[in-house]
């Protein structure tokens, strides 16, 4: 189901019903039962996704894929700015249409029901966008100091996210300075100690964290930490350390579930 198609249907005030039936048929598994925001997607959702054709994703499906990826990934994934802008634009256009139709006195009762369904759907899409942004935001706060020192990660963030990361890193540094460091002897008042046998002072994403990777297509062999190779065919789901599938996730060959 294409967004624009749906928009046109709604704008015409006409056969929107078909779109909902069709959407229901093509819909991704319902996320209502997910234990948000921490729980992983329930396993029952997986077989359903296996039947999804890998090609021709609608923007909503793309958004949902990026959203589940982001939620399951220990690292920060590249920002999907274009997709988000498109979806938000679409929501804006659609809410304008809805507004127009609602104010139109000639809109029938039947159409009002459809408008309500469209509005509910919009709220649900907004929920996913919000959850996606907040998930990224949580990681940015957590790794703010790491982000400010690592140019590669910065390329994966939007300008707004970058700004917030550096602001937050500053706020936290200042806070720690005021609470602790300024009272310590000068020799101890640094945040970048590199003592032996002690973990780094900068929290970094743990890329060795295991993730469930679902191959959306046949993948080239993955080298596992013990030296063996794993070849994932389309539809396979494996539990692997994140760093082994990192590139596949970025390229969209693998999704995290």
């Amino acid at each position, binding site marked *: 189901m294409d967004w624009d198609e749906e928009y046109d249907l709604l704008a015409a005030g006409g056969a929107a019903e078909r779109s909902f039936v069709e959407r229901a048929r093509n819909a991704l598994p319902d996320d209502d039962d997910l234990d948000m925001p921490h729980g992983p997607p329930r396993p029952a959702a997986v077989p359903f996704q296996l039947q999804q054709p890998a090609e021709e994703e609608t923007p909503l499906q793309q958004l949902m894929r990026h959203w589940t990826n982001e939620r399951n990934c220990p690292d920060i994934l590249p920002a999907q700015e274009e997709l988000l802008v498109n979806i938000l634009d679409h929501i804006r256009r659609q809410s304008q249409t809805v507004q127009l139709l609602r104010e139109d006195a000639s809109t029938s009762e039947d159409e009002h029901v459809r408008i309500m369904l469209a509005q509910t759907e919009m709220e649900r899409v*907004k*929920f996913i966008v*919000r959850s996606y942004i907040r998930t990224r935001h949580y990681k940015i706060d957590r790794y703010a100091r790491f982000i400010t020192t690592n140019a590669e990660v910065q390329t994966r963030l939007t300008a707004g996210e970058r700004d917030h990361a550096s602001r937050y890193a500053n*706020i936290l540094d200042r806070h*720690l300075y005021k609470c*602790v460091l300024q009272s310590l002897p000068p020799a101890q008042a640094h945040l970048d100690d590199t003592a032996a046998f002690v973990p780094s002072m900068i929290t970094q994403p743990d890329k060795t964290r295991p993730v469930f990777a679902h191959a959306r297509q046949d993948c080239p062999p993955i080298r596992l930490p013990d030296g063996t190779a794993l070849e994932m065919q389309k539809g396979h789901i494996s539990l692997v350390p994140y760093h082994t599938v990192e590139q596949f996730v970025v390229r969209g060959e693998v999704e995290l579930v």
Partner: protein
Amino acid sequence: MSEARQYGELATQLVLESRRSTQTDTLLKYNDALVRSIIREQRDLEKAAEPLALLDGPPVPALIVIETAINRNKRCLLAYHTHRTDRLRDMYWAVGGALPHILANQELRGRLSPHEVDFLREYHASIMDFRSDFSDELDIMASITQPPKDLHALVKVVRDCGWIQTELGNINFKKGERFMVRRADIEHLIVQGYLEEV
């Protein structure tokens, strides 16, 4: 040091407090006294280390012991404060970024150090900046715990919250009353505990 105490014992207490805070899922009162005594211990250790560091030759074992204690104490101090800021951030998001709501809560405020209040204010300012990047269509502060199932919600007013603009016009929410309103209009009030879903 006057008392017979192992190096780093106080720091262990401090970290234990963080641990307890995680286990009980509460923010404990900022332990100013303990933080101060650890900082005092740090200064004493530094004084003890200085003459040893001036000695010629390879570092003496005593110096290594002291340095290790210093590093450990410092990490514990930082861990304690970072743990608290993490909790503060979670708390901030749990009420949908309503900072006045947090600060008006006297019981909670009593548990924060003045620096932590400043921290929350600065964090809030940064989030507001970040939020303004998004259009009016999307309020990133709204709840993300339950996906919406209905457009409207039946709510009960738990605390007076005055006139609120909704789809149906301005409504004066008074304690004890019930309304059927658009969820998006009052979501933040549910999060902040003014309204309850029936």
